């Protein structure tokens, strides 16, 4: 859209989201999960705010389990500046910039607890799919839920 000749507003007023924000980084990582699990477990980032704080929940979703949701961790930061940010996981961790956020996320994604959660969700999801194919409805292997 062309700027009105009398406008005093700058041309670059509407800025795109900062690609280095915690939200952008989490969304990028959420998008990277689905291809690795063949869409059996996907991830979504749920943002909320209270006062001057923003909370970003990193939630795993298992579509085959009636969209079962498991929150893996959350990141909390001030509206501005966005760093340092706090990761609330098994222990609370503070990250000072984008690089340390990426480093910590990599550790969370490689952690044994994360691996176990993903494996179990994928196993239940696979079982549910098998049950659905045999028209029995989604029932995890160990027990009725």
């Amino acid at each position, binding site marked *: 859209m062309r700027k009105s000749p009398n406008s005093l507003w700058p041309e670059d007023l509407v800025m795109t989201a900062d690609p280095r924000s915690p939200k952008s980084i989490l969304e990028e990582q959420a998008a990277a999960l689905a291809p690795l699990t063949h869409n059996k477990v996907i991830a979504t980032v749920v943002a*909320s705010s*209270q*006062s001057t704080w923003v*909370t970003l*929940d990193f*939630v795993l979703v*298992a579509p085959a*389990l*009636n969209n*079962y*949701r*498991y*929150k*893996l961790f*959350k990141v909390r930061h001030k509206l501005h500046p966005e760093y340092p940010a706090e990761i*609330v996981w*098994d222990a*609370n961790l503070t990250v000072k910039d984008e690089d340390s956020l990426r480093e910590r996320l990599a550790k969370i994604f490689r952690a044994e*607890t994360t691996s*176990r*959660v993903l494996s*179990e*969700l994928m196993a*239940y999801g696979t079982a549910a799919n098998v049950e659905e194919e045999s028209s029995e409805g989604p029932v*995890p292997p*160990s*027990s*009725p*839920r």
Partner: protein
Amino acid sequence: MLTISFWNAKQKAACESAARLVRSHEADILILAECPFDDAEMLEALHAVGSHGFWSSTPFTGSDLIILTRLLRGSFGMVQDMSRLALREIRCRDGSRILLAMVHLMSKMWRTHNDQRKAAEDVIGDIVSHEGQDRKTIIVGDFNMNPFEEGMVNANAFHALKSRKEVRMNRQIDRTVYTPFYNPTWGLLGDRGGRPPGTFRRVGGVYCLFWNLFDQVLLREGLIGCFDEDSLRILKDDGQISFLGRAGVNRRISDHLPIMFRMNLEVEIED
């Protein structure tokens, strides 16, 4: 009427005791933490004592909670799970929706007082973000804190108060508004009437409470009217086996005692 029971049931023998509790108190929702048996074994035990219609809403992963209910499947929905918190929605006959938050927070064995307070602040944030406009929420579980500790009382943590009157109003501190919970578990402190003086006993150090009340229930103000205050109890036995021993609790069953309470809510039960 909706009857809910919570128990940190640490030993295998607690499985049969939990089944007998459900049977004798006609519990509709049974929540267990830290148990060495799984939901399928618990369902079998319930079936064996003649409690039918129960099904499992246990977290699929990443949690040590077991959640069993005999509410109609459409009346008890999954919301979200995380490592120390499970959220479910109870749909009542009148259409109202209750958020049921079940917790098993970090033990004092592994965390400091400050860690526990910080964890309480994080968990309450997760609960509040899932509350509806009418804020009808029940929190129950093993908080690993006593009702008087900062993590339970602080406005930015559970904000759980002992007075019904005080929870009628929100509190504004600086620019943030905090909505309190009513914590009826305060009323179970002490051994009045011969009841157990807490749910968990530990002895050691100069400052020693002996009995702690870690297992609690919290209610939003909008649910106080539905709460049957006389029903909240620490259970001493399952009708056959005592949960108490010479040194406090009978550790062959569990190191915690179960709690049970009733809400005057109309819910639909499985056939």
